[in-house]
C-alpha cells in the first residue's frame, strides 16, 4: 500500500537523520530534532493506522491524511525502492531504534534514556514477544566487529513491528541539553 510504504520510508530516513545528528558539529540542534520528531510522529501514525486497517479489513485502507499535495500522479516525485539504510554504529545489538537516547549529553539533561539503568520491567518488556525479524524499513543494527571477532546470531529485535512503533515514544526524541 502506497501510503504505508511512504510512511515507512520516511520513518527510516528520519531515524537515520536522527542518528546522524548526534555526531554533528556544534551539538544537537533542538529545532531540527523537533522537526524530525514531528515528521516521525506523522509517519508513525499513518503507518500504524494503515496497518490496523489492513488487518481486519483486508486491503481496505484509509490514510488519515494525504501525504502529498501534487495534483497529478505524474508530477509526484517517485521515490526509489528503499535502499539498505546506512548502518549506524551502535554499541549493543539490542538497542531499539524507537528510543534513541543521548547518553553523551551533559548535566543539563532532563530526559535521558539511560540504557544501563533501565528498570528491569522495561528491559524485559523489550525482550518479550515474538522473536521475529526487525521491521524491514529500520536500519540493520549489527554491532561493529573488531578484527578477529566472530558474529553469533541473535534476533535483532524481539518486538513485533507493530508493537515497536506503538511504543515509539517520539517525545523522547527531543534531546535534552
Amino acid at each position, binding site marked *: 500500500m502506497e501510503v504505508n510504504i511512504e510512511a515507512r520510508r520516511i520513518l527510516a530516513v528520519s531515524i537515520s537523520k536522527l542518528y546522524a545528528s548526534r555526531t554533528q558539529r556544534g551539538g544537537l540542534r533542538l529545532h531540527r530534532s523537533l522537526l524530525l520528531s514531528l515528521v516521525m510522529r506523522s509517519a508513525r501514525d499513518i503507518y500504524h493506522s494503515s496497518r490496523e486497517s489492513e488487518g481486519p479489513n483486508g486491503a481496505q485502507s484509509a490514510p488519515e491524511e494525504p501525504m502529498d499535495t501534487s495534483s497529478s500522479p505524474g508530477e*509526484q*516525485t517517485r521515490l526509489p525502492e528503499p535502499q539498505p539504510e546506512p548502518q549506524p554504529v551502535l554499541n549493543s545489538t539490542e538497542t531499539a531504534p524507537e528510543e534513541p537516547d543521548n547518553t553523551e549529553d551533559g548535566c543539563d539533561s532532563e530526559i535521558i534514556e539511560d540504557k544501563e539503568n533501565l528498570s528491569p520491567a522495561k528491559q524485559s518488556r523489550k525482550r518479550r514477544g515474538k522473536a521475529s525479524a526487525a521491521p524491514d524499513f529500520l536500519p540493520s543494527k549489527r554491532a561493529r566487529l573488531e578484527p578477529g571477532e566472530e558474529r553469533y546470531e541473535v534476533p535483532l529485535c524481539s518486538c513485533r513491528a507493530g508493537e515497536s512503533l506503538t511504543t515509539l515514544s517520539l517525545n523522547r526524541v527531543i534531546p535534552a541539553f
Partner: protein
Amino acid sequence: GVHGLKTQHSISFLQFLLLTADIISTVEFNQSGELLATGDKGGRVVIFQQEQESKNKLQCRGEYNVYSTFQSHEPEFDYLKSLEIEEKINKIRWLPQKNAAHFLLSTNDKTIKLWKISERDKRPEGYNLKEEDGRYRDPNTVTTLRVPVFRPMDLMVEASPRRVFANAHTYHINSISVNSDCETYLSADDLRVNLWHLEITDRSFNIVDIKPANMEDLTEVITAAEFHPNQCNTFVYSSSKGTIRLCDMRAAALCDSHAKLFEEPEDPNNRSFFSEIISSISDVKFSHSGRYMMTRDYLSVKIWDLNMESRPVETYQVHEYLRSKLCSLYENDCIFDKFECCWNGNDSVVMTGSYNNFFRMFDRGYQQDMTLEASRENSKLRSVLKPRKVSTGGKRKKDEISVDSLDFNKKILHTAWHPLDNIIAVATTNNLYIFQDKLN
C-alpha cells in the same frame, strides 16, 4: 532616490566578490549602506566599504572594497557537555553610528561580541624617551625636549573586541537585534530571548522563556526575533509552528504572554507529512516604517500588517513548484534550509533567495515578481540580468529551467538590500554578488 521595481527597470550586475575561505553565513549593510559586513562559517568577519562615487561614473555607484577582515569567533569546546561550539557567525548587526568608529555585534551559537572598527591614519612621532622603532633611549642621551606630533600614515583599519556577552544561552542563538534606544539589544535562542545592555556583559534579562517544565512536552521553538524599528518597547519572535508573537516590554518583566499573536490558519488541502516543517518561520523582518513585518517560511514570503493578527495581508510564493518535491527535499536535507528575507529602503520591494542560485524579488506596489540568478556567467560589469523562469507545467519553453534540473546545492540563504539605494548584496555559498538598479 529609491525606486520600486517597475517593468522598465532592470537589475544590472555591479560587482562580484570572491570570498575564498568559508561558506558565507550572514550579510548585513550598515545604516548608511556605506559598509557591508559578511560573516562566515569559519568565524571570520569581512567588511566592505563603498568607494566614494567618482564624478565621471554617473551611471555606476561606487564599488565595494575590502575594508577590514578579522577573526570574530573561534571554535570552542564545552567540556561539561562534551560539545564543540561552532565558530560560525550566525548574525551580524550594526549599531547606529555615533562617532568616527563603527560598531557591530556578531554572534555564533553561544557568544555575542561587540566589535569596534576604527580607522587610524596618523601616528605620533617624536617621543623623547623612545626611538621611532620603540626602543627606549638612554635617558642620559636626552639633551633637548620636543613635543611629539601626529604624522600621517597609511590608513589602517583596526577591529577590536569591546565587549563579550557570554554564558547566557543554553541553546543555539539564532538572532540578535539592536533596540532603537541604541542602548540595549536582544538575543534569542531556541527557547529563550534575553535582553542586554550594551555596556554590561555579566548580566542579561530573560524576557521570553518558552521552555516547558517537561521537555517531552516541547512542541515549538523560537526561530527568529527582532526589535521594532521605532518602538523601543516592542519586539517580535517567530516560531517553528509558523506563528509570530509581538511583545510589549512595558507590560511585564517576562514577556511570555504576547500582546499579539499572528497566525494564519493552515490550508487543509496542503496537509502533508511535512506541513509542520515548511510552516516553520526561518526569518522575520520589520519594514523600515514599522507598520509591517515580513516572515519567510520554506515556500513563501508573507507580509503582515501589525494591526491584523488573523492572516497576512500579502503572500508571495517563492518556489511553489517544490511543494510536490518535499519528500526528496526532506531526504537531502534541503527542507531544513533557513532562508532569510529583506525589504528595500522604502518597503516597496521584498527579496529572498531560492535554489539554483536564484533569488526572487516581489514588488508590492506593482504586484510583479522577478527571478534572477547570481552566477559567473552574468558577471560582466553592468550587464543586465535576464529574468529566469522555472517551468512547472508539462511543456518547457526555451530558456526555462525544469524543476528537476535545479541545483539544490546552490542555495541563496542570505541577501541584503542597501537601506537608501537600489543596491543589493546576494550571497551564494562562497561568493558575494553585488547588483544595482540600472539607472535609465
